[in-house]
């Protein structure tokens, strides 16, 4: 009897299993097309960067990176990221704290504002600072009288970078903190902890992996931003050129090996970011909000 039942179940199950998956041929074609597409569109560009970077040999590669203007560009990129990332980190934590733990009017509008830099062209992000601080603006003459240089100088580059990268941390933390709710904090407060103690010992440990994830993406974008920075930088060699801008200049003067040498550092940064990101996702997926993944 049991045997007969088993048999009847398996005769039902077999066609169902076959009908809810594709034939081997269809699978093969789907995977083949996908791998070919990803290979041509993602892997090939990455490979080209490294092949071209070493096209003139290893010594030429390191010589290109030691060239004074390039070295200055690397230093500037590190400086800008060192300012913009911590700023946006503090902002991201504060914003997601305010949004997740409190109720107030206009919350949806606030979230839209935070997302805004993602939907605006980087060139327009740069343009708004030119309009704000440029010669024809209301602030322009004032800044000039006081000898403050924002456009075509480091402050402008930092501002533009802060603008384009500030959604990353907040976007990552808002869903995470909303998920976690306020019970942990309420418990700590009712046990006599102060607001700051609660933040340092309860909230921050709860969000640390999500925060790290956001910082990782924020940093990658801060170091790689091109459009916005290009508009405000003025392209002064050795002074206001970041690494991506230096890539453009070298490439446009047909110094391909040097351009790709600088580009290879940025590509390496991207790879390290992807590896760390994947490791974080594998190890702490429950502590990094799944809904905030990717962009």
């Amino acid at each position, binding site marked *: 009897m049991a045997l007969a039942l088993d048999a009847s179940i398996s005769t039902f199950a077999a066609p169902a299993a076959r009908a809810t998956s594709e034939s081997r041929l269809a699978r093969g074609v789907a995977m083949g097309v996908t791998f070919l597409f*990803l290979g041509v569109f993602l892997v090939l560009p990455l490979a080209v960067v490294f092949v071209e970077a070493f096209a003139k040999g290893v010594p030429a590669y390191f010589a290109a990176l030691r060239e004074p203007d390039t070295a200055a560009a690397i230093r500037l990129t590190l400086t800008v990221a060192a300012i913009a990332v911590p700023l946006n980190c503090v902002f991201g934590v*504060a914003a997601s704290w305010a949004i997740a733990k409190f109720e107030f009017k206009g919350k949806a509008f606030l979230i839209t504002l935070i997302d805004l830099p993602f939907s605006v*062209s980087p060139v327009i992000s740069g343009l708004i600072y030119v309009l704000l601080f440029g010669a024809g603006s209301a602030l322009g003459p004032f800044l000039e009288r006081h000898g403050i240089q924002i456009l075509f100088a480091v402050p402008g580059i930092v501002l533009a970078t802060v603008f384009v990268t500030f959604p990353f941390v907040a976007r990552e933390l808002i869903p995470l903190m909303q998920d976690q709710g306020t019970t942990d904090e309420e418990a700590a407060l009712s046990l006599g902890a102060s607001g700051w103690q609660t933040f340092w010992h309860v909230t921050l440990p709860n969000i640390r992996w999500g925060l790290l994830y956001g910082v990782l993406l924020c940093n990658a974008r801060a170091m790689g931003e091109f459009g916005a920075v290009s508009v405000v930088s003025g392209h002064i060699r050795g002074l206001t050129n970041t690494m991506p801008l230096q890539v453009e200049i070298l490439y446009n003067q047909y110094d391909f090996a040097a351009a790709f040498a600088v580009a290879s550092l940025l590509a390496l940064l*991207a790879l390290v970011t992807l590896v760390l990101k994947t490791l974080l996702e594998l190890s702490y997926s429950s502590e990094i909000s799944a809904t905030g*993944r990717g962009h």
Partner: protein
Amino acid sequence: MALGFTLAYLVVIVLVPLSGLAWRSSALGSAKFWSLASDPRTVHALYVSFGTALIAAAINVVFGVLAAWVLVRYRFPGRRIVDAIIDLPFALPTAVAGIALTTIYAPNGWLGSFVQGLGLKVAYTPVGIVIALVFVGLPFMVRTVQPVLAEQDRELEEAAALLGASRLQTIARVILPALTPAILTGFALALARGVGEYGSVIFIAGNIPYVSEIAPLLIVIRLEEYNYAAATAIAAIMLIISFAMLLVINLIQAWSRRRYGLGA
């Protein structure tokens, strides 16, 4: 206090600069604004930007959904690596992507010489722009469709199969409709990103006015000529068209969510 800081930061970093843009474009006056907006070079640049972004987003619908499907439904060695590499366009600086793609598709490049043998020209044409925008937009599509596909109820497919639907019918009538809202979201994100994209496009586009010049590049050109009025006008039109398109997509999305129930 956190809220106060958040608001102050937002006002300084976002609202003040953006209102500057709105104020400067309204200060132009409508007659001046329209004469700048209807400049044929501007119109063509906008046409190129929005046209190529639409085509690229459409290509990403096909390959992005396919990639999401393969990653969610099939098990194969190296799946995690393939999954991780999808995010490469998010992590790789756009200028790096731009010079890499240009090198590949240049007439003497790895693929460029092959494509030229077929009588096609990719680099320095609008086709090159589409290629760059496909690269940039791909993760948006995959990452919006992937989680929805992963959470989709397999029992619906089993039911469809038991009721006699072929696999193709099940995919077309059961799986894809449920994915539609997510696909639209991915399409909208890829489109918005593509319209504004600058770094990865300018190298491969060739930037020939009236042929392959994109709107963000024209803004940069106008700025370099200190023609702030024209730059502002182009930026304002881009923002208006983008918001209008996103609004339409949101409406379609709301409609499809009502119709199919499931959504992103």
